[in-house]
């Protein structure tokens, strides 16, 4: 870290803080570290633990057997941790907002053949918006979470950087935070590795120390396709259709486009195991067609991204930006050249944000419409911005 930069993991807090607690080990340790820091400084500010009730499994008829969020036992765990840390703890009901901002778009996107990323939307529209707004009413200007990410202060700028633990890094889900958000957010465990976090939890005797990792999407128990079906009106469940190749030849049938993601290889269900080396190339929701082909056929010159949130001054058509693009969670990233129209063309009413063009310059990665595209600096450390991968293909 160069001089003049300050990591804002637990230092630099002058305000009262709401720490979001899921009951899991990461947010538990985040809360514990904040409480310890407060005690060390003998600070009078408040630290308040909050669990977000976003989804009610009793109402959704989902399975309770799997460890997911929002189960009463998670709240019990979070409350126990808060008790140990000596901070007040409350459950906030955010079900309505979550349903409207995360669940409903998630289902609609899947039905339209996209592969959405609900964690991005939850962070952007629920955790760092609704929870922040409600925290402000409690006099808390700062929201802390147990994300693996770092915020580094560099002069007047707050930089979002990958966590020290590169395997656990969650910046891919956090690109939607605005510069203002970054100045009032703390990630108390961003400078730690997962084993270090678990060790702190174990040493403090936290109930969540040995809790298994939460997997995939917190509100989906079972398969996504099953979730989409259960939460759609009968008429809205995507119907089955044809699986074809790029030449339009029929290879088999599928039971709905919501079962597929572009770039997916397994589970095509083609007869005779003939899908062994085939990938989903394209999902055509309007005609219920799934186009498959060889991996090489997935290659594109780049992609178009909409709804970019920039944490640095955006590039223009004349001043392109060389950086690293991450196209999926756990994707290592690929070097790209980014340009952006100065303003919206207005030709496409559904996408009125300026179009951002991303060209692969060394190597390529499968492009999955609906997923997030997140840009990092050339060191693959600092988040520069991010947006949603468009279904519109980039032509050469």
């Amino acid at each position, binding site marked *: 870290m160069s001089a003049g930069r300050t990591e804002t993991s637990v230092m630099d807090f002058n305000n009262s803080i709401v720490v979001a607690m899921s009951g899991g080990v990461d947010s538990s340790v985040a809360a514990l570290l904040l409480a310890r820091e407060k005690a060390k400084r003998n600070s009078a500010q*408040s630290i308040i633990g909050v669990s977000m009730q976003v989804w009610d499994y009793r109402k959704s008829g989902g399975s309770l057997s799997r460890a997911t969020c929002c189960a009463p036992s998670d709240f*019990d765990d979070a409350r126990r941790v808060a008790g140990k840390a000596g901070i007040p703890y409350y459950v906030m009901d955010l079900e309505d907002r979550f349903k409207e901002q995360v669940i409903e778009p998630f289902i609609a996107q899947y039905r339209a053949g996209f592969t959405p990323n609900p964690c991005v939307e939850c962070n952007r529209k629920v955790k760092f918006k609704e929870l922040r707004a409600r925290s402000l*009413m409690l006099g808390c200007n700062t929201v802390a979470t147990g994300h693996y990410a770092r915020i580094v202060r560099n002069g007047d700028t707050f930089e979002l950087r990958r966590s020290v633990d590169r395997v656990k890094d969650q910046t891919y889900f956090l690109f939607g935070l605005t510069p203002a958000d970054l100045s009032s957010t703390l990630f108390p465990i961003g400078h730690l590795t997962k084993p270090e976090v678990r060790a702190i939890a174990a040493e403090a005797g936290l109930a969540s120390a040995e809790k298994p990792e939460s997997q995939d999407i917190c509100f989906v128990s079972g398969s996504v396709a099953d979730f989409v079906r259960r939460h759609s009106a009968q008429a809205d469940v995507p119907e089955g259709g044809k699986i074809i190749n790029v030449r339009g030849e029929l290879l088999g049938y599928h039971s709905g486009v919501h079962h597929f993601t572009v770039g997916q290889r397994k589970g095509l269900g083609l007869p005779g195991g003939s899908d062994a080396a085939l990938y989903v190339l394209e999902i055509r929701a309007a005609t219920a067609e799934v186009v498959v082909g060889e991996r090489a056929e997935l290659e594109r010159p780049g992609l178009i991204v909409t709804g970019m949130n920039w944490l640095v001054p955006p590039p223009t058509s004349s001043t392109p930006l060389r950086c690293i693009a991450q196209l999926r969670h756990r994707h290592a990233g690929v070097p790209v050249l980014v340009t952006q129209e100065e303003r919206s063309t207005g030709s496409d009413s559904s996408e009125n944000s300026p179009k951002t063009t991303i060209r692969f310059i060394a190597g390529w990665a499968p492009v999955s419409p609906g997923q997030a595209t997140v840009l990092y600096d050339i060191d693959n450390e600092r988040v520069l911005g991010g947006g949603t991968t468009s279904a519109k293909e980039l032509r050469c």
Partner: protein
Amino acid sequence: MSCNLDANATWGLHPAVLAAVTEFLPRLKRELLNPSSVHLGGQSAKLILDEARDAVRELVGASSGDAVIFTSGATEANNQAVLAPFISLSCAANIDRSQFAFLTSCVEHESVSDCATRIAQLGFPVRIVKPKALASFFSRADFLEQMHPSVKVASFIHGQNEIGTILPVAQIALELRALSPQVFIHCDAVQTVGRIAFSLKKLNVDALSLSGHKIGALSGVGALVVSGAATSQLSSLLLGGAQEHRNRAGTENLLGVFSLGVAARLAKQDEESGLRMLSVRSLLREILLEKIPGLVIQGECAVTGFSQSDPEQNVLPNTLCITFPPNCNLRGDDLVVACDIAGIRISTGSACSSGKQEGNRTLKALGFDKHAVQASVRISCTGAEDIAELKAAAEVISRILTNSSLRPAR
């Protein structure tokens, strides 16, 4: 500051009960106090139970022929009065279940409304009184509409726990008995015992439930008081012992029962407690109405159509349910949290054990809109609050609400 205004959730241990319990505790070590034992310890224990029974009888105006069954709390008492008869009926062969209906209202505590759900699952008709018009309270006609000769068990809340409205249980019972003479009528009197004057006989009910920790006793103890004539209609919920005259198996919670007896005696002696509560409620009501334009006080409505014997007694003297105006960009559950941080304990109404606040379920059941359900809190007092603290608390609540209205809408 520290100001407890959530008495409907729990009263707080009465100082005199604390003293009596502290003095009593060593006896549990010295003597072997199991009321079922044959030896002298058993005899002493029985005496303790009977003294408490008398105190409870006196508190609710019951006579020596009426039964007092000690339970683990009002929830168990409600389950025993409401659900247990239907469990027994389920075991009987050759009965026409359609002729054994349960009647209740839509504003009951979960310990009755959840029983209603179970009774329906057992195959018995359940009739629930709801107000005809949305966002209003009941009329006599709403009750009459659901009354039917097939109703064999009925249960009504006396003082509504979330909005404070007092139901004219006596008049309702009178109408119901005319239509269905064999009906067993139960009343959930948890929030009225010790707060307003009434008696088992005047209420015209067969049984009533009460809770220890709502009148300053320990939690984990309550009672079902049953009129002598109706004891034959009782069914037990817990099996496995002859305790409580075979009405409730299990070794008695002697310490809890003792504390309940002490608290009941104190409540009976304190004839001015209702007045003190009322003055606290009035003070809070006045300040909040003045400071928050557009504030709505809920629950002060009478059930229309009945000849209310005491028109003043429409609402619990200690319960103030407020709905703040839409320009306050704050939900009830956020106000509860903000108040807690400021040292003031209030609630939205019911809270589930996980800590999630579901809004005011009574207003929801009465058909109030989402705003009213979400933007309401319940303030409930004991009457022992410090006036300066109360004024300060009302100021803090007003300030939080006023500040929230200055923020842009979300």
